[in-house]
């Protein structure tokens, strides 16, 4: 018995269970109906509607009530089959004839396989069985229920389109398709999850996105074997390489305009039904500081904002650690007057600086977690409790110093300056190891930990791309365009680290003009 066997028992009883169904589409009409009824026993929302065609022929429709639009079923299927005024009797020997001449619906097919039949029912299609016809006819009548396209909630911007993805996947890919109008914009379909049978759409622009990337994604996704997932955040765990790293290697976005601009850069998007977040791969470290609306602003502002965000990233991760390191280990590095001020505020505090910092950070994290789940009516009171009561009273009581409160508040606020909820969580975690490293050996500890993290990031690859590109293998043009938003005239190429098909995406007219001729 090795160490591993002692603590990590492999559960050898794992067997993927296959839906044990009888072959539905075999046997007589009655047998078929009986099979289906037995299968969906106790499913309240499953409907079976029997009808008569041409007074003698029996027919039956099956659907999940909750997924279909009644009107379509009534008007285009039941009416068609049951309407008495037919000029001459249609021949119902053949499902081909029914499909081609009888059903005026936009999407219809025949199935013989049980699996396809069931899949169609689950997707919200309507299945039609007619006596004497071997195959089942599937008609698409599903209705979009749920949220309509509205504002993106998790990702707000001041300028730019305000649309956001919703839970229904057909609305989502319609939002994409109406923005990218080329036949090269491919959307490949996959179905994953044994019980949830999610529809996954892999969207990319052929010729622009790296072919190996697309193939790799397809391969990875097809290898997933699990019960199911509910959200794309859940899905991305399955194809993440190197799960131990706290840094994300994909971008989650709720906005179609951002999704489109990333697709144009040469990335690949994954849409999943039931999730308003699209997964964009690959992502490198600098994608943390990018948002959708920078391209819509003047480039000076965009550059400035990106630098601010990067600084905010550093501040929010390092500032409590640096505060601890400087005040405890290196008071000589702080200017005298500032040192006296900090010492005055820290006088009489019963905890050492490290404990004080950890306590205040934990308190703020708890407040943050609480405020996420607070019901709206009580929301404002939490801010009063958090801000005034805790901040003010803690200082007055002498449990924490004002300088510490300032540092912690600064940390929390700058953490929000970094866009992207996914990355935020990473930073929140990283703050604590830095504080502990600072409390062990001051600046030396901080730098050591920084070095370890840097080494980890440098050796990491995100779907084949070095994680610190364009700093890793240094590419100055990419730094100017991807990291700092360069002027429009410089942004003529896609980021080179994505290794896209065609690099140049914008051409400018030749700028050389004769003297006296201003460009109009």
């Amino acid at each position: 018995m090795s160490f591993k066997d002692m603590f990590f028992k492999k559960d050898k009883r794992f067997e993927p269970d296959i839906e044990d169904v009888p072959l539905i589409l075999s046997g007589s009409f009655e047998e078929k109906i009986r099979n289906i009824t037995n299968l969906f026993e106790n499913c309240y929302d499953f409907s079976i509607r029997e009808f008569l065609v041409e007074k003698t022929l029996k027919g039956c429709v099956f659907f999940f009530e909750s997924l279909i639009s009644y009107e379509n079923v009534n008007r285009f299927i039941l009416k068609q089959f049951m309407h008495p005024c037919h000029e001459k009797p249609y021949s119902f020997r053949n499902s081909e004839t029914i499909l081609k001449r009888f059903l005026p619906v936009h999407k219809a097919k025949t199935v013989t396989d049980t699996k396809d039949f069931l899949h169609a029912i689950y997707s919200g299609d309507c299945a039609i069985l007619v006596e004497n016809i071997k195959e089942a006819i599937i008609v698409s009548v599903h209705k979009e229920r749920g949220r309509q396209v509205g504002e993106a909630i998790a990702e707000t911007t001041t300028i730019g389109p305000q649309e956001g993805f919703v839970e229904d996947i057909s609305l989502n890919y319609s939002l994409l398709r109406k923005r990218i109008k080329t036949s090269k914009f491919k959307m490949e379909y996959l179905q994953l999850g044994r019980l949830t049978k999610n529809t996954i759409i892999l969207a990319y622009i052929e010729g622009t996105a790296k072919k190996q990337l697309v193939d790799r994604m397809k391969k990875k996704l097809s290898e997933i074997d699990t019960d199911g997932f509910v959200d794309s955040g859940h899905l991305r765990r399955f194809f993440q390489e190197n799960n131990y790293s706290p840094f994300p290697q994909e971008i989650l976005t709720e906005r179609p305009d951002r999704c489109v601009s990333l697709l144009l850069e040469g990335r690949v998007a994954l849409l999943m039904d039931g999730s308003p977040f699209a997964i964009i791969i690959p992502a490198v470290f600098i994608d943390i500081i990018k948002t959708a609306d920078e391209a819509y602003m003047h480039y000076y502002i965009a550059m400035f904002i990106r630098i601010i965000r990067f600084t905010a990233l550093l501040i929010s991760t390092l500032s409590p650690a640096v505060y601890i390191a400087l005040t405890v280990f290196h008071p000589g590095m702080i200017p005298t007057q500032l040192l006296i001020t900090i010492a005055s505020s820290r006088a009489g505090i019963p905890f050492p600086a490290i404990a004080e910092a950890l306590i205040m950070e934990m308190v703020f994290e708890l407040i943050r977690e609480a405020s996420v789940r607070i019901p709206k009516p009580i929301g404002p009171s939490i801010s009063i409790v958090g801000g005034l009561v805790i901040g003010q009273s803690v200082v007055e009581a002498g449990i924490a110093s004002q300088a510490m409160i300032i540092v912690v508040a600064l940390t929390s606020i700058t953490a929000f300056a970094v866009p992207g909820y996914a990355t935020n969580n990473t930073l929140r975690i990283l703050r604590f190891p830095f504080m502990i490293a600072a409390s062990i050996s001051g600046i030396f500890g901080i730098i050591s930990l920084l070095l370890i993290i840097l080494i980890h990031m440098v050796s990491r690859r995100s779907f084949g791309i070095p994680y610190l590109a364009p700093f890793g293998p240094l590419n100055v043009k990419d730094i100017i365009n991807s990291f700092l938003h360069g002027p429009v005239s410089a942004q003529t190429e896609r980021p080179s680290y994505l290794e896209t098909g065609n690099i140049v995406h914008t051409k400018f007219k030749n700028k050389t003009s004769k003297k006296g001729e201003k460009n109009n």
Partner: protein
Amino acid sequence: MSFAFLSSCWDARELSEIGIVVVTGFDLDDDGLERVTVLSVQPFGRAATQGTTPTTWFGTASGKSAFEAMRNLRQTATRTLVWMHNKIILIGEEKAKKGIGNISDLLGRNREFRYDTTVFVTKGRAEELMQIPSNLEQSLFQELLGLIENTKLWSGAFALEMKDFEHNAFSMEHGGYVIGNMSSYETLKLPFSINRQEHLKLYNKDELYSVAYIGGGAVIDRNKLAGWLSDDEIQGYLLIGNKLKRSIVYYEDQNGLEYNVTLDILQSNTKISFPDASVNNLKAKISTKISAAIAEIDGAIEDLDPVFIKELEKKIKQKFISNMALTMDLAQNRFHTDFVEFHKELSAYHPAIWKQVKNDWRDIFPEIDVKYDVDLKIKQLGLLTRTISKLRK
């Protein structure tokens, strides 16, 4: 990883445990022991009660050497003292007379002292200067820092930085140097302004108030105090040493027209050179470029035309020359020490000659002829283009 567990909190000192020393004074006791006095900032208590309570600790201890005295402070110090924020070093007169070699060594060797600490010599004991109550600030050292700031604008005072102090200490064989003087004087006048009620409470006490000031300097030769320079004498020293920042000169014309002019010196640049230098023939030439502005004129002057300005420049040049000559006289004849740093110029630019005269420098220096070449330019006349007396007409 193992380092994290083994080192624990090595070198960690909480802010509430340290006392930040800001002023250090070195003295000599009557029984020959060295005495070290410190002012250290030690905020204590709770932040809310900080308002008017004093937070600067005054501590003093003696020992056989300065470092031992610093350690002996621990006998009464309530916190661990750190010297990394020390700003002012005061050396008492008695100590300076005996010798400050050990102080230079201590400051240079110790890791905690910074190079921009200012050094001063005190008339009297440093301990007594540090006991002066501050007038308006929270504590004395803030007022002393303010005094040091003002030396940049006034030539009667001079603040020597520790790096120069160390530098000069190493070349003590050949010449001396000057350290600024920070002392206190007594006055009956209240050094701050209050309302009548408070004044009546204090007035009857009839006591002398001590006020700290910076003025003049002390000449150090061979690590011992050789003498004092007054406010006027130090101006010449600063001028020759190219250390003059802002200064004034007052000129009174006695021949013919009676007027007096006060110039505000904006910039000055001095170079010492030894033209045609050889071992037997050492002549020094001090060339100065000064640009000044007219600050005040009184008297019967016709017109401030360029001709008159040129005349003025010529006459005031003489004043500068006499200032510098006065300092040279002090250096060569009174103190017999080269505190004007001729030897540095010579060793830098004429190393061959320096090698030969090095050993006899103390005898050769007083014999050196010095020529002065002052180039004074009055650049600004202020807002008035004529004198007041002329304007009245």
